[in-house]
């Protein structure tokens, strides 16, 4: 009896020791030599492995950042400037601060504004739906509403609003990794500058069709009328392919375009006060009137100058031809 117990203990302990030794030797033999800074950098990262930086994950980012000569091509949108400061410190590199960004949904074709024209009966996936047809509304550019962006978000920052049928971005949670933007087959979601205290101005539509058809398909679409571009005094709005786009680098958040937009396709968010459209409209119209008058006056003046100068010019010309 006792010997059995002793033998059992001996065999089990011996086995344990042998296996431990094997493990140790294997670990020694197959040890991967790695720059210790990679681990430090990785620890400083948010660890979401979202791929927003363009690398496969936080480790791949750290590995590449350590090997790179500078941090120009490495930026973690999730951790933002703070994380990048830490990374730069570890590696002894310079870092350039970047403006914080946020995902913006550029479609405001709500269920009420954009009537359904057909019923989709396939897999609930925007990709599948987009490859099948233009969508279940008259707008071939708008949100398909199947929530591929919601599924792509690793931070739970996007949800579908059942009321509007459109995705809503939670600015607190959004890390601007860009996964939703890549997932959207209609390229509706754009990463835009978050703006001072979150204030920003954007065209919430990407419809490239011409005016009348667009209006029929969606009441709140950008019809490409160009009023906003004419209103903007900062040269921030371009009109291309029948749709306006606000350059967030140039926009000064004056909200004039928003007030002037006939369909309400331009959205301003996080402003402390609600927009007073009438006041702004009056201001803009006044300015435009003045500008028109000034232009007319200038034209008049130019004409007058021309009339005054013309004989002299003609004289010169005549002389030239003679000469």
């Amino acid at each position, binding site marked *: 009896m006792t010997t059995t117990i002793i033998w059992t203990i001996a065999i089990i302990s011996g086995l344990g020791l042998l296996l431990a030794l094997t493990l140790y030797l294997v670990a020694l033999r197959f040890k991967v030599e790695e720059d210790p800074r990679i681990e430090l950098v990785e620890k400083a990262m948010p660890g979401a492995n979202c791929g927003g930086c363009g690398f496969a994950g936080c480790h791949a980012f750290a590995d590449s950042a350590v090997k790179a000569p500078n941090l120009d091509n490495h930026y973690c949108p999730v951790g933002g400037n703070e994380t990048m400061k830490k990374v730069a410190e570890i590696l002894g590199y310079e870092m350039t601060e970047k403006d914080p960004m946020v995902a913006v949904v550029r479609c405001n074709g709500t269920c009420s504004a954009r009537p359904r024209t057909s019923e989709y009966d396939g897999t609930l996936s925007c*990709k599948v739906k987009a490859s099948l047809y233009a969508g279940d509304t008259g707008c071939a550019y708008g949100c398909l509403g199947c929530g591929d962006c919601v599924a792509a978000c690793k931070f739970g920052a996007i949800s579908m609003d059942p009321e509007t049928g459109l995705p809503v971005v939670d600015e607190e949670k959004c890390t601007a990794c860009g996964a939703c933007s890549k997932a959207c087959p209609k390229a509706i979601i754009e990463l835009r500058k978050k703006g001072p205290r979150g204030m920003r101005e954007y065209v919430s539509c990407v419809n490239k069709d011409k005016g009348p058809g667009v209006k029929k398909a969606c009441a709140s679409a950008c019809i490409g009328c160009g009023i906003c571009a004419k209103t903007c005094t900062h040269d921030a709005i371009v009109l291309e392919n029948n749709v306006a786009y606000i350059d967030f680098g140039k926009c000064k958040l004056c909200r004039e375009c928003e007030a002037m937009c006939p369909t309400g396709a331009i959205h301003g968010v996080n402003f402390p006060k609600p927009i007073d459209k009438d006041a702004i409209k009056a201001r803009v119209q006044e300015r435009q009137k003045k500008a028109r008058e000034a232009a007319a006056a200038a034209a008049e003046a130019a004409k007058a100058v021309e009339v005054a100068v013309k004989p002299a010019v003609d004289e010169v010309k005549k002389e030239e031809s003679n000469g």
Partner: protein
Amino acid sequence: MARRTFSIGGVHPADSKISRGCKLEYLPIPPTVYIALSQHIGAPAKPVVAVGDKVKVGQVLAEPGGFMSAYIHSSVSGTVKSIGPRKDLSGNNQMVVEIAVEGDDWMEDIDRTDTLVTDIPEDPKSIIEKIKLGGVVGLGGATFPTHVKLSPPPGKVCEMLIINGCECEPYLTSDFRTLLEKGEQVVIGTALIKKALGVAKATIAIEDNKLEAIEHIQKVVNDLKSKGPEYSGIEVLSLMKKYPEGGEKQLIDAVMHRQVKSGGLPIDVGAVVDNVCTALAVYEAVQKNKPLIDNSVTVTGECFPKQANLIVRVGTPLNYVIDYLGGVPEEAAKVISGGPMMGKSIANLEAATMKGTGGLLFLTREQTKRMPESNCIRCGKCAEACPMGLEPFLLNRLAKAGDTDALEANAVQDCIMCGCCLYSCPAGIPLLDIISQARGQVMGIMRARAAAAKAAAEAAKASAGSPTAK
């Protein structure tokens, strides 16, 4: 006798060929036609007419926009109203030529009589040239430019021409009616393609649910044998009814017992496959100078009151076709361009027909509504049904995990989108929806890799060549 068919997978949906008794009938010409510039696989055609031009039936509207492209002809006579984007049947914009119809004035060189022309031209090149000028494309569904198919790359030899009369899709009967009513023309077209390819053997393959067609074509082939040596070597083959028999790869397997390698072309195993309607179009283009301006369209469905097999001018608005037969029935929930297995759901009934439009099918909600998805019970019915021998349940799982390497290893790129997996899945899992996405993704990766390899090879060649250049 064992009935011949393809060796892997396949399903047996109900035949439902309720319009099989309806004779081919010419649809009146609509007041306006919208002729798309991209009605074939490959580059869109380039328009050669301008707004305001008067055109005749059969006049060239657009020229091929590249090697893989086709001529587009006017299907009506009238005035070009506009050339611009218009919504196609899926609601996406497509370039079309809009023509307001005035009378029915044909080009003079088109032979509009019913006389059969049985003499086969001597020169294969002239046949292919005429096919190209006639804008003939494959009418089996893929709309592959026929003249390209009939010019095999050097080194590839065709051993057998297969004329596809399977029409394995349920409901569709236009190929069947064409075989019955225009059998002579189809057989002459077959002889023309045979001559163009320089191949000795041709097989007209017909599924055995169309016995009348098999008998009729057999008789026509026997009768035409006396007309010339070109008509010998044409055989009629009866195949067991099974979907997707009319798939190019499955048909080659059924007829020749050969399988096309993954990523390969039929010509690699010595086969060229053309649809019966393509053979008819070839006959008309070569013997009658008539370009491809109309095609036969089955309009059917249990809920549709008036079944028909119509000959429709290319570019006729779908609305016009439907209204001619009494309008969309109240019970219809879905309208499909093509058959119920591979056809495309129509979102926009204002869209116009194209060369490849073969059917308009109306299904009720009960017939077509997808059932709610439930758990996979691992019954393997999808794998059993897949005619390519793939495992859809596995591909579905891999696609959801986004594992493109494993998807490629499990041959997702071989999928022919026949729909057998989704048709047979008892749990109603949308296998094909997911797999076709994954297929597109993997094919994109493969193309990118091939392009990179080619660029690398060229770079290596250039660097290898540079020392001698010095």
